[in-house]
């Protein structure tokens, strides 16, 4: 997986978010403040512009620029959280690439599934550190953490990327579904107490879209 792959993933994510913008906003209207779709769409639109202006040429740079742009353009809770997630992924891949270059002096920087899984694990850690949410708190962590675990498992089992992304997407979607019966303990939805029960978490839903896009790009 090279920088083209990651650029394609982010662009596909931007399209997917745009297509689901109103849906995400409606989810946020039910238990939040009706801006999640608008926020992410604004952010990923800016990310597309930033990527096409800068054309970063390593996977790490693609994801770091994505994260930085999200932090600079989104605001709200999701801006810093998703921004941090992508920046952590970028940093992980850059470090991995550095090691790869050292060990393979021909300059090959393609990302392995194992490295990508590690990057997602770093993203989960970043989001948890910044937002303080654990799984079960009804946040994006409920989709991101199981998806990252699924990816890591698939990598350990030596699966093909396509299969691994299927597993990650399934785990993310299952995580989204699992937020429905929960009472939120973090973010705006926590203000609602028991009234938030029965609603899907918008941030978990948008996280699942990252994996929808990943699956789509890998399949292409």
């Amino acid at each position: 997986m090279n920088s083209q792959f990651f650029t394609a993933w982010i662009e596909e994510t931007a399209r997917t978010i745009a297509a689901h913008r109103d849906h995400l906003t409606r989810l946020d209207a039910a238990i939040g403040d009706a801006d999640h779709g608008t926020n992410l769409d604004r952010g990923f639109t800016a990310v597309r512009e930033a990527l096409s202006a800068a054309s970063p040429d390593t996977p790490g740079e693609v994801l770091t620029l994505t994260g930085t742009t999200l932090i600079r353009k989104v605001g709200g809770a999701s801006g810093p959280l998703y921004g941090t997630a992508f920046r952590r992924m970028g940093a992980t891949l850059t470090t991995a690439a550095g090691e790869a270059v050292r060990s393979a002096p021909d300059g090959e920087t393609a990302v392995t599934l194992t490295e990508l899984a590690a990057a997602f694990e770093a993203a989960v850690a970043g989001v948890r550190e910044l937002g303080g949410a654990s799984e079960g708190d009804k946040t994006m962590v409920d989709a991101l953490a199981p998806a990252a675990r699924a990816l890591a498992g698939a990598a350990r089992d030596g699966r093909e990327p396509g299969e691994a992304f299927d597993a990650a997407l399934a785990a993310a979607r299952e995580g989204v579904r699992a937020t429905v019966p929960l009472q939120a303990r973090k973010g705006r939805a926590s203000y609602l107490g028991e009234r938030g029960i029965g609603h899907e978490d918008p941030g978990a839903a948008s996280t699942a879209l990252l994996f929808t896009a990943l699956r789509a790009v890998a399949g292409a």
Partner: protein
Amino acid sequence: MKKLINAADSVVTDALAGMAEAHPDLRVDLANKIVYRRSAPTPGKVGLVSGGGSGHEPLHAGFVGHGMLDAACPGEIFTSPVPDQVIEASHRVDGGAGVLHVVKNYTGDVMNFQMAAELCAEEGVEVATVLVNDDVAVKDSLYTAGRRGTGATVFVEKIAGALAETGASLGEVARVGGQVNTRSRSFGVALSSCTVPAAGKPTFELSDTEVELGIGIHGEPGRTRAPAATARELTRIAMDAVDDDLPLSGDVLVMVNGMGATPLIELYVVFAEVAAYLRERGAVPARSLVGNYVTSLDMQGFSVTVCLLTDDLTRLWDAPVQTAALRWGR
């Protein structure tokens, strides 16, 4: 949805352009979305920066001016500003005595201001933060994001701003801001939802016989839905919630705040009930604001915010202020 806007995604900048035309004392940086005093920075004075999602006007930009904020960073509708805005604003108002960030306690606001504060520190701007969390509708527990910041923000900005004008240090200004927050509580009631422009329809639906109790300022539904009731009854529910959390006594600063679509005549009806409630308990509505100060777009409803005054706080409240939305003294 009908709104006086040109497009859902240009509301904030279009409104800022209007502010720039209406208030020559302010500088409005449309590209960075920062509103600051034309005279900024004031050498030797602690700079006050606040910000948050738009849709709460006049909060915060309407409170930029002598005796209150030095700069405001409006985010998109109901979306906290991004760190860049806060960093840029902090630089512009830093007169060498440091910058106070007044932050309402929402996950997004806290994270974005925190990121900004860290970068400011790296860049040599001393920053202190006052976190406002006055809304008693939300229990401050491990199981929530903590109490929300609402009406008390106005009190914190006014009183900390007044102290900053005296040349007090960043520590002193932050301390008095924290003190105001600690002595303040709010509770809000909605008669209707609001409509976020980009969402295009009301965030929640309320029938003609229901109200939402314990609402926030972002169209989030409240803690409970209740039958519509008189101003007197609704005021008592709000005041009881406040009084349960912070027993009311002595001189009190009170704000009866409209949520954006509430006629002023109704706010005065509520204020009469608030004053009666206070007097019954031997407290005195010594200072007050009645009007739209911390709104939630086109929501109908009100919130009440009280602050237990001390002589010092009263003096700072009475100190001159010259902003678009709050003005007195010279």
